[in-house]
């Protein structure tokens, strides 16, 4: 119980304290047939207790970026700091010690098939040099944390995908890391299992103050647990920021990814506007109020209100009869209610 008890603290994301700081990161893979620039100058800062998502298509360089954080891949240029440690300069024993403070979970779980659930968690403790006498209690504590106490004696082959990932998470937390790296941890899972694993990660983030840097190609993962997100393309960050910021950023690709608006961007005789609200404003009846106050036959062309990891947010595409000039007052009203308004046509 000890560790879990002590480690519970209120998570405060302090923008001033970055647990992971990456700057100018570059990694090129060379082979006989040519070379691939996998990461092409990435700067990234992850605050303490933050859940940071890197979103991108397959081949964007996400895995390479993540593997550079714990030096599974050696970057060609740039620096990587985790906690107080600058990792790019480390080798041997000092690198291995630094790695104890960085947990990692994997898309295909990467468990030892020859060991039981308990044995897999114990392996991580053996690696970090936990005395034999302490291991058993600690294994039990970790399995409890991920809800796998009953399956301690099972082999990975006897587990479901979600259970395997729970073992992966327990193992990653064995050395009490400050940071968890997640390489597509839910990509091999079905939607319900994905949801349960994301809930567990969010729970660990909140209870243990665990900082999580995850990479994914699934928007739902970002929606569900990320406070900040970056869009990666061709080895670079095309866009990044907190989800709340991005939603208010005109023309943000990530925002339209998070909230696909649908509906036509232009309509004869009407002004089409995209309206974004977040926080408490998301649930205010501003559209009804708009219709009443301006006596306008506003139409909703598309949109949704959703609960994101850190905020409620709503985004709609509306059609207001008349030209933009006719609707100046209506748009002013929406802005006065905290909405980000963008005129589409």
């Amino acid at each position, binding site marked *: 119980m000890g560790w879990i008890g002590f480690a519970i603290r209120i998570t405060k994301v302090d923008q001033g304290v970055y647990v992971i700081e990456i700057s100018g990161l570059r990694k090129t893979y060379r082979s006989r047939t040519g070379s691939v620039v996998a990461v092409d100058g990435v700067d990234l800062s992850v605050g303490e207790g933050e859940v940071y998502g890197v979103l991108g298509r397959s081949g964007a360089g996400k895995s390479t970026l993540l*593997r550079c954080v*714990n030096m*599974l891949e050696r970057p060609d240029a740039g620096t990587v700091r985790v906690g107080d440690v600058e990792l790019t300069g480390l080798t041997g024993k000092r*690198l*291995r*010690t*630094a*790695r*104890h403070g*960085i947990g*990692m979970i*994997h*898309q*295909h779980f*990467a*468990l*030892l*098939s*020859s060991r039981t659930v308990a044995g897999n968690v114990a*392996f*991580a403790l*053996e*690696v*970090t040099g936990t005395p034999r006498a302490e291991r058993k209690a600690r294994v039990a504590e970790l399995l409890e944390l991920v809800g796998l106490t009953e399956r301690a004696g099972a*082999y*990975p*082959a006897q587990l479901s995908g979600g259970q395997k990932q729970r073992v992966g998470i327990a*193992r990653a937390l*064995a*050395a009490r890391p400050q940071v968890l*790296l997640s390489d597509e941890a839910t990509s091999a899972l079905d939607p319900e299992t994905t949801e349960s694993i994301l809930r567990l990660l969010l729970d660990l983030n909140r209870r243990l103050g665990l900082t999580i840097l995850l990479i994914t190609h699934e928007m739902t993962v970002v929606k569900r647990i990320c406070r900040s997100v970056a869009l990666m393309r061709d080895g670079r960050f095309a866009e990044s920021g907190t989800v709340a910021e991005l939603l208010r950023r005109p023309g943000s690709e990530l925002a339209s990814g998070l909230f696909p608006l649908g509906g036509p961007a232009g309509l004869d005789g009407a002004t089409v506007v995209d309206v974004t609200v977040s926080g408490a404003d998301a649930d205010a009846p501003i559209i009804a109020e708009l219709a009443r106050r301006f006596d306008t036959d506003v139409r909703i062309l598309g949109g949704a209100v959703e609960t994101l990891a850190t905020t409620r947010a709503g985004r709609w595409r509306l059609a207001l009869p008349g030209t933009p000039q006719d609707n100046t007052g209506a748009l002013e009203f929406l802005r006065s209610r905290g909405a980000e308004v963008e005129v589409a046509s």
Partner: protein
Amino acid sequence: MTWSEVFELLGPASRETAWMVGVASLFTAVGGLLIGVLFVLTERGGLLPAPPLNALLGLIVNLGRSIPFLILMVSITPFTRLVVGTSIGTDAAIVPLIVGAVPFFARIVETALHEVPGDVVAAATAMGAGRGTIVGKVLLREALPGLISGFTITIIAITGYSAMAGSVGGGGLGAFAIDYGYNRFEGKAMTATVLVLVVFVQLVQMVGDFLARRLSHR
């Protein structure tokens, strides 16, 4: 030749074969594991990349495997004499058995170790495990069922080679079968030899299969 005369000679011959196969298997296990592990470690992208050493090991292994056993045996007689002081008899036969079987087993070890998924090794590395831990607790342990199946095949191959070695002055069941069964047309001697070998191979295979199955949790 009566059956009892056959059995009288069959006993010592079987013991000689068991000795040759046993000792050769033991050395082959050690040698094959060493070379196989070293080969995988020194690969490009391995835990201890050393392409020149890797190429050299690959060459040695391929060379050893491409020479037919009979030719290998006679061509290394000077080396055999250097090691055991003689080039005939059971002990002398053990040397070419090892030289022939080590490359064979090394290649099997390499294949078995490659079966261990790369992300399992990466996961251990990410945890901060050192090379020794990764080789011992991840690579060899995860590959153990495959290594045991492969070693079973190796013991059986050594048994086959040992009969060949026996037929050209090595002693054991091979010598017995040639001397009595073939040269003196003793059908009983030949039958008995074949039976002993079949039972032995069958036993080795059964034990190997059992162990491999017990240890596999895939």
